């Protein structure tokens, strides 16, 4: 007889009472669980213990999600003979270990040593020239979402860069909108999951109303390589905007570009607390598509959100896949 086995069966059958229960009556639970001491030193989110312990060393990573949020790169701007504005970029791809949650290091593949890669920003009709230098052991590409000739597609056979090589992608940016670029070498899933992606924002020729602009690339990391993500985030670092909320001004128009590159999960989403946003799908229209407070996106879907906070206070934003939210994709705006 295996007593533990039948003990368990007994317990499941609810065969309680009598001598045993009298001998070993379970003490009743106290009315309220005592609030224990806070773990770690870094987490200030105030979600009753939910979150990570400690702080990510952004300096060692070489990039800070708070900088990425507002870091738009126009490249080296000049004009060609036809008078067209030209944005020239030099991008290197190389592997780099990055801390995706406090103390958790992920062997990422990067553009320019950061995940997501630089946010490229041009205006519709501008010429874009990006020279990709491959400093890694695998072939890589830059595949832009947007109009371009087949030879500039950045796929195996068209602009794929072997280790040590380089290639210059040259095209005219259109249509305007919130777009993205990513590596398209095979295996595709691996190259994306490792961190080879970034936002590509094309402004309408006439511009948009004045606003405070931000970019969030919703991503995730499968740190143990079992096909499921352990860490979710906006701009790579779990809870980065929860530990240090994003400062905003009340009454100011906010324009948020959101790109979903989450691998291993079919959808991701963003939900803003205590406000509604005007949703510009793919950012390709000057008129909003709807007014809502949550938008769900498949991989490579991206949208432009405009909103305004009326009153000061701390307002959460997070994936409404609560699983993702509690695995890192939660942040807050500190509105003053």
């Amino acid at each position, binding site marked *: 007889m295996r007593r533990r086995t039948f003990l368990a069966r007994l317990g499941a059958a609810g065969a309680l009472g009598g001598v045993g229960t009298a001998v070993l009556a379970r003490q009743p639970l106290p009315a309220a669980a005592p609030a224990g001491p806070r773990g770690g030193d870094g987490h200030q989110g105030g979600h009753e213990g939910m979150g990570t312990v400690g702080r990510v060393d952004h300096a060692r990573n070489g990039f800070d999600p708070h900088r990425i949020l507002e870091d738009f790169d126009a490249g080296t701007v000049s004009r060609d003979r036809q008078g067209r504005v030209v944005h020239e970029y030099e991008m290197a791809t190389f592997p780099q270990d990055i801390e995706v*949650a406090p103390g958790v290091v992920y062997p990422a593949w990067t553009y320019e040593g950061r995940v997501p890669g630089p946010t490229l920003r041009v205006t519709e009709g501008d010429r874009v020239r990006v020279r990709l230098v491959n400093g890694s052991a695998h072939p890589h590409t830059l595949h832009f979402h947007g109009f371009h000739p087949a030879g500039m597609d950045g796929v195996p056979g068209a602009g794929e860069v072997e280790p040590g090589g380089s290639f210059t992608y040259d095209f005219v940016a259109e249509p305007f909108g919130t777009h993205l670029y990513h590596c398209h070498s095979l295996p595709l899933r691996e190259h994306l999951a490792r961190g080879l992606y970034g936002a590509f924002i094309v402004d309408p020729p006439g511009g948009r109303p004045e606003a405070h602009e931000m970019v969030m690339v919703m991503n995730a990391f499968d740190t143990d390589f079992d096909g499921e993500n352990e860490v979710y985030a906006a701009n790579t670092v779990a809870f980065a905007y929860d530990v240090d909320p994003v400062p905003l001004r009340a009454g100011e128009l906010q324009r948020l570009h959101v790109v979903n590159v989450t691998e291993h999960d079919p959808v991701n989403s963003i939900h803003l607390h205590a406000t509604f946003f005007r949703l510009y799908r793919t950012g390709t229209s000057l008129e909003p598509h709807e007014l809502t407070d949550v938008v769900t996106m498949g991989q490579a879907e991206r949208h432009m959100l405009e909103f305004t906070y009326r009153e000061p206070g701390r307002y959460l934003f997070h994936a409404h896949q609560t699983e993702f939210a509690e695995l890192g994709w939660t942040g807050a705006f500190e509105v003053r």
Partner: protein
Amino acid sequence: MHGGDVQRQVEQRDGEQPIERRPSAGWSGRFARPARTARSARTARTARSARFGRPGRLACASSLALAAAPLLALVLVVAVLLAVDPVRGLTGTVPVESLAVERVVLEPGRIELQVRNDGRTDVTLAQVQVNGAYWQHTTDEARLGRLAGTRVVVDYPWEPGVPLRIALVTGTGVVIDHEIDNPGETLRPSGDTARRLAVLGLLIAPVPIAIGVAWLPALRRSRAAWFDAAIAFTVGLLAFLVVDSAAEGLDAAGDAPGVLDGVGLFAVGALGSVAVLAAAGDRGRGTGRMPAHGVSAVGLAVLVAVGIGLHNFGEGLAVGAAVSTGEVALGTALVVAFTLHNATEGLAIAGPLGGAASAAPSPGSGTARRSRARVAGALAGLVAVSGLPVVAGLWLGALALPAGWAALAFGVAAGAVAQVAWAVARWLHARGAALTPLNAGAFVAAVVAMYLTGVLAG
């Protein structure tokens, strides 16, 4: 073995004159061993020293040197292996990080884990997930060298009976999962808990064992054939306990941290206890004080009690651990099952003593009253030896010791009970008992009784 040396089987009963018995054909030579004289041993030693060195202190020193030389060579080889690292270049993989959760203590709103690095490389415990969410934790030491342990505390509003999935995330992103299927508040070690467990232990072990032993007078009045059957019953019960101990021990071995090698611990316990008990049984052999086939009836009963006691210690460990972590709830049916189970064990202890009626003190050797008191005292001792370990096991188990200890304890029990079962079987054979249908039936009856007392309650 010199079977031809032994012409007759001699049986001795507890301090009485040897009783001569007719040898039964077939197995007498197999089970009897000749007495080796002291002289022959001395001769052998002399022969060895003559071969390996001169006698005296010089011989001692030179044989020490001879023994040390291979040891030195081994140390040298290990040093070379460490320096050269011949494996480097043969394997491109990095060692996998591993953490073992040795112990979980649950209090309202709080989860405490005792975690040990049981892998081949250092591990940093970076984050903790509870039910798929990062949860803040405190730890004594986040960076753990090989075999280093630490306490991890998470304040989490867990609910009794609702499964908990805990994931420990290491610095390299490796995830170590630990599931608590049926969480309940952990019993705190206290005088009160100890008292409750002692009462429980006494109720489920010594009391029913004593009841089982109370079969003894009936056994003594039975015919010799029935006495043999009682011994066969004992063998059957012990055989069942061997299987049970092995199953429990290997189960615990599976739960033990990998670096401890639970199966190895089980083997150490099992083989060690076999050797110790066998050596104890052989003590005094050849001195003429013991019968050639091993032990007296009382000695056998003591062996059976010790074996059952060791098994019950392991059972106590398992039940104590299960109760303390709230994995199970104790109920009347369970207590009844234990009672029947252990009463059967009492009967097994009484078995070998049943035949002692024939060796009862003769009228001249003391008053019957004094003899009866002595017997009662001896029986109480046997009950204590076999039953009280349950209480000790419950106490230790309630401290939720790492699973490796349970593997070791059940290993000791399995080995001990196997050795005892073998000794009792040998004794039965030496008595001249044959494998009659009655004896075989008694053997099977014991196995079935143990099985049924286990299952009926469930």
